[in-house]
């Protein structure tokens, strides 16, 4: 069996938070997450705010030091010693195009910085050429390298961020909500850019977003997160059409559909209550307080991911087969 590009097992990221005088509670942002990604594949990671998806992305890249768990890239375990080497293969594109670019640097400097850090050129001219080709790869042109980030629109800035990530020629990119802050008409441009680059360069993506439409479009497989754990993983179409976890089902039904007839005819599952605070995760299954199919066992034991259909894993004691 070919090895996975990226293998994450039992990733945990806990943050100590002061909750009182001399009192600390653990914020379990990520509490035991496992998944794999293959070469050239896109895994979508969805969930609502507070589910820990952004933290997964950052822990993966060791921007936070993981509390527990193993991350293997090409079969090699990543730790504090060898992470620098891996930075050339694993990159990231951030959500906010307004704060992820240094306002005092020109575009040429921003895109060229990774080249400088990893010494990826021998002469000035070579660096210049690489910067220009990166800009053109994402749909900008060489005139832009002398300008400053604030002169560009949100979509263009996001392209600059992508060019910067591509400078080190990575194999894998963590896309942390890369289109959420953009206008609808620009989102499509950037989504297409990601698609084209994936085809051209054989990139693998961890595509983190809260908009299921976008994630469904981009990903081969999707993992749904709730309060720090993955509750369901399946092929994208199955998540949308055959969701088995009660949370996934209500998530799918809650999404507004841009189609008036379907909107009128569909049956909505509207969840009661709010997402519990990650400081105070309910025992057993974290979703049980809002679940209409909860049973006693749900309060006692935390469900693990089990494969209920080929390639379709669900963490639930009482999964509902969709009609």
């Amino acid at each position: 069996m070919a090895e996975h590009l990226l293998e994450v097992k039992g990733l945990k990221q806990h943050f100590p938070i002061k909750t009182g005088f001399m009192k600390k509670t653990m914020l379990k942002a990520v509490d035991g997450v496992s998944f794999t990604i293959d070469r050239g594949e896109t895994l979508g990671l969805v969930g609502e705010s507070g589910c820990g998806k952004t933290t997964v992305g950052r822990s993966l890249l060791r921007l936070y030091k993981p509390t527990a768990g193993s991350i293997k890239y090409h079969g090699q375990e990543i730790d504090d010693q060898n992470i620098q080497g891996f930075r050339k293969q694993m990159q990231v594109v951030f959500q906010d195009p307004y704060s992820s670019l240094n306002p005092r640097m020109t575009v040429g400097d921003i895109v060229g910085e990774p080249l400088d850090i990893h010494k990826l050129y021998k002469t000035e001219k070579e660096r210049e050429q690489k910067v220009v080709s990166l800009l053109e790869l994402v749909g900008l042109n060489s005139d832009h390298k002398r300008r400053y980030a604030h002169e560009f629109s949100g979509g263009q800035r996001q392209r600059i961020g992508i060019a910067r990530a591509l400078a080190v020629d990575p194999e894998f990119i963590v896309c942390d909500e890369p289109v959420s802050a953009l206008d609808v008409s620009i989102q499509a441009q950037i989504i297409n850019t990601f698609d084209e680059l994936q085809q051209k360069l054989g990139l693998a993506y961890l595509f983190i977003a809260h908009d299921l439409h976008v994630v469904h479009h981009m990903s081969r497989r999707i993992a749904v997160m709730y309060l720090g754990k993955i509750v369901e993983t399946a092929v994208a179409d199955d998540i949308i059409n055959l969701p088995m976890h009660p949370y996934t089902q209500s998530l799918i039904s809650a999404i507004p559909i841009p189609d008036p007839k379907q909107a009128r005819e569909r049956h909505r599952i509207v969840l009661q209550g709010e997402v519990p605070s990650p400081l105070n995760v309910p025992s057993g299954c974290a979703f049980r307080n809002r679940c209409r199919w909860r049973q006693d066992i749900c309060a006692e034991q935390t469900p693990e991911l089990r494969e209920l259909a080929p390639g379709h894993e669900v963490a639930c004691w009482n999964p509902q087969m969709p009609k």
Partner: protein
Amino acid sequence: MSQPLLQVKNLHTMFPTESGEVRAVNGINFSLERGKVLGIVGESGSGKSVTAYSILRILDNPGRITQGEILFEETDITKLPRNQMRQIRGSKISIIFQDPMTSLNPVYTVGNQLMEAIRLHTSRNRQQAQERALEMLELVGVNEPKKRLKQYPYQLSGGMRQRVMIAMALACEPDILIADEPTTALDVTIQAQILELMQELKNKLGMAIIMITHDLGVIAEMCDEIIVMYAGRVCERGTADEIFYNPRHEYTKGLLRSIPKMTTTKERLTPIGGSPVDLLNMPKGCAFAARCDRAMKICLTEQPEEIEINPDHRAACWVNVKEGALAQGGQNNG
């Protein structure tokens, strides 16, 4: 047929800045009937929020309305003196904003803020105002309302705060509720709750709603009539079915083509090229022309007028004139 509740006629709003005049709204017209939901769709810079603020006259200084009329129950509220305008705000026309985190005052309790709205516009005393506040909290589905009255905004979640905002807006039973991106900052499951709540309240209280958003899904769910805005102008207006199934403006078509839908196969999206228009340098002619695949020479020089496609549907796009002309010509020659 009764007169519409609200009529906006040829509204122009502008912000003078160091770098020039930002023309946020450039001549829009629409009307709102009692008990209906009107959706205003547009992206950032389209002028939809500025329109709402213009109606309530809560524009940020130095913005101002430079032209046009806004008729509420036959009175032009752009010309009202300030004290009379204040009587309309909150009691006849209310607004709820996008970010529930920042729209509630963090140093006052929820009850305090609710009662402020009530006591400003009605003659209730403190006791009665508190009862009414409790009523409103129950109406909007806030659990443990008595406890919530004494809590501060930071103690509530996003969805809860948005409900409180809705309670504040509806406390005086306004005729019109303006909702400016009310669910954009909320999670999807909470969004569903809030939208359902708004539908319920609309049916119960019979108010009209202006729903401002960029989310086409929300628009499809909630709205009877829709206007699509771009660069401060109305591109297209019509019923929800007309706009979604028979779009006639190139911008609307572009928007509908560019959103990923879960039901389609994974073909490449067709985005709208180019970047949003710079409101400081408004071009002549149609503001969308530079990004439009079917732009014609006339689009660059003359602003299109609204062309009636059918009684429920009008679009401001020269392509419709051309298509109409060619269709007629074809009929004649055939």
